């Protein structure tokens, strides 16, 4: 399918990202254990704001980065509680605002309202989970926050170390020493 040129140019522009000035070193690795060792060594030398790009998540790398648990669950809990209360509130408000007895049942019949509360809890909990995840993962990402290589979705792992000057030289040596296939300085 042939798309109009302006659309294609726009896609290319989005993928390339704005021309941000990145200062640091990017190392491209193949082996997971090399990355794990490199991350540990870098963190020991004070580089704690590392970023690792990988095609799949590797727990050894996560442990080396000492990542805690995601806080998205608290956002999700908030959405779920709001949904449950909102579901019950909608049912109770509606029967009280137009009091019409149906089938001889109580106006505020909680057992059937449980279903509305339950479904609303799941709906709003899931929406909160989605928006929480998007916010925390900074998606949609328009402005690329570090140099990126398409091989990171294939089979290579990237380690981005923000640094400059002499520190950058040492980082380059360190990454090469730990088995990086390529090391690029962005200054």
């Amino acid at each position, binding site marked *: *399918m*042939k*798309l109009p040129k302006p*659309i*294609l140019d726009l*896609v290319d522009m*989005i*993928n390339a990202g704005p021309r941000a000035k990145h200062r640091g070193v990017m190392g491209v690795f193949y*082996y*997971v*254990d*090399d990355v794990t060792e490199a991350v540990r060594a870098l963190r020991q030398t004070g580089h704690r704001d590392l*970023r*690792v*790009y*990988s*095609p*799949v*998540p590797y*727990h050894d790398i*996560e442990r080396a*980065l000492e*990542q805690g648990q*995601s*806080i*998205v*669950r608290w956002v*999700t809990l908030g959405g779920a509680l709001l949904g449950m209360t909102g579901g019950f509130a*909608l*049912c109770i408000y*509606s*029967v009280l*605002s*137009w009091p019409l007895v*149906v089938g001889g*049942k109580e106006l505020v019949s909680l057992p059937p309202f449980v*279903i*509305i509360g*339950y*479904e*609303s809890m*799941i*709906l709003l*909990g*899931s929406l909160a989970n*989605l928006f*929480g*995840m*998007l916010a925390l*993962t900074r*998606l*949609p*990402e328009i402005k690329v926050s*570090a140099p990126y290589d*398409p091989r*990171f*979705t*294939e*089979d290579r792992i990237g380690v981005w170390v923000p640094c400059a000057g002499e520190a950058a030289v040492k980082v380059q040596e360190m990454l090469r020493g730990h*088995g990086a296939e390529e090391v690029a300085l962005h200054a």
Partner: protein
Amino acid sequence: MANNDDATYEPAADAEDVGVTEHVPATVTQKSLNADILRMLERPGKIWWGVFLLDLTILAIAMVAERNQIVRGIGVAGHTRPVMWASYVANFVFWVGIAHCGTLVSAILFLFRAHFRRAVYRVAEAMTVFGVMTAGLFPIIHLGRPWFPYWLIPYPNQRGLWPNFRSPLEWDVFAVTTYLTVSSIFFIVGIIPDAAVQRDAAKNRFHRLLGTIFSFGWRGANYQWKHYYGAYLYFAAFATPLVLSVHSVVSWDFAMAQIPGWHSTIFAPYFVAGAIFSGVALVINLLIIIRKGYRLEHIVTVDHIEKLSKLVLLTSTIVGYSYLCEFFCAWYGPSVYERDMFWWRFTGHFWWASWIMFICNVILPLTLWFKSVRRNLTVLFVLMLFVNVGMWFERFVIIVTSLAHPFNPANWGINYRMSWTEASILAGSFAWFGMYFLLFIRLLPAISIAEVKETLPPPLRRKHG
């Protein structure tokens, strides 16, 4: 998704030969996997176009039938008092049931850490979303005045009217719309890392555009994976009780009414098991076609299909138990109406439909006890078609026979015959579902690249020197 246990990345002793999960051969690499899955997005062949055009033709016929019904009124359907719910409601329940497999495979099996789901769950999830989109049409088609479905939605209006929240039909509105929303979110979120692969590696710019849109700018950074999996766990945790509730709520459309054959407490688990039964059967059919058509036998293996067929066997036994339990309760219980209803179901005017249901859903799946049947894909394909025929007839039998044989013997005439309009719309529902599915497999990765990649042995220097 990510293994949240403390497993190390040392591949198992036999990983050289069969891969970590014993499902994907060791010849598959991260790079070859990308290429194999993205190959599905290349220019479609003549067979795809032929099937797609046939599909659109059937859909066009159904749209003419629907136009006919809108112009001439709901009377063109075969509904006749007292059978005022018939094929449209049966279709609704059938398609909601089909939609249950996706959530089962993607959420429930995820929570149980059943790793075989990784290669098959995307197809099942797509089937869920398109199945609910199909199911949602039928209450509207059945309305008679299909331009008023929004009356079911609670919204402030000048008359101060609200829907009746004590009605099972209103519960259905909440259950089905929640299910459509949550399953769509689950589906789209699952695609994000794979769409990034498509964006980075697609050969043509149209597919790159789709990858750009659906990846949301995903780069696979460590903080992204962390929150992505954190959220994915909760999507699964929400979707699991949701899938159980949705078909329970659908079953209460019937069970809450005091009609012999409907008014039963076993309906919720009975319907949920039936839904999973038919959904897994259809996903097996679709997977057999896709793996053959796109030469993906090394990624969607016979092992995967066999494990799914065991699920069919399990749910078939639950469905069979439910049929027998209903009969036992009718025979043992105090209601003569109930007893008469069940006897009439299998010996009366619609005996043929009841026996198709019983044979297809209970007798034929018993052959799945044999490993040779579970691993013979031709036999399995035909068997799964029979299962879905049987499951459509199950809904037909429950709805039509119960209404056709009510309390008053004066109404025991032969009073329902499916019209051509209904038959066309039933065929059109398959075409509607098929249209979305055919487009999906051409536009986005139909097999989860990231999840299958996780089953491959990770590259370790200490292993390779």
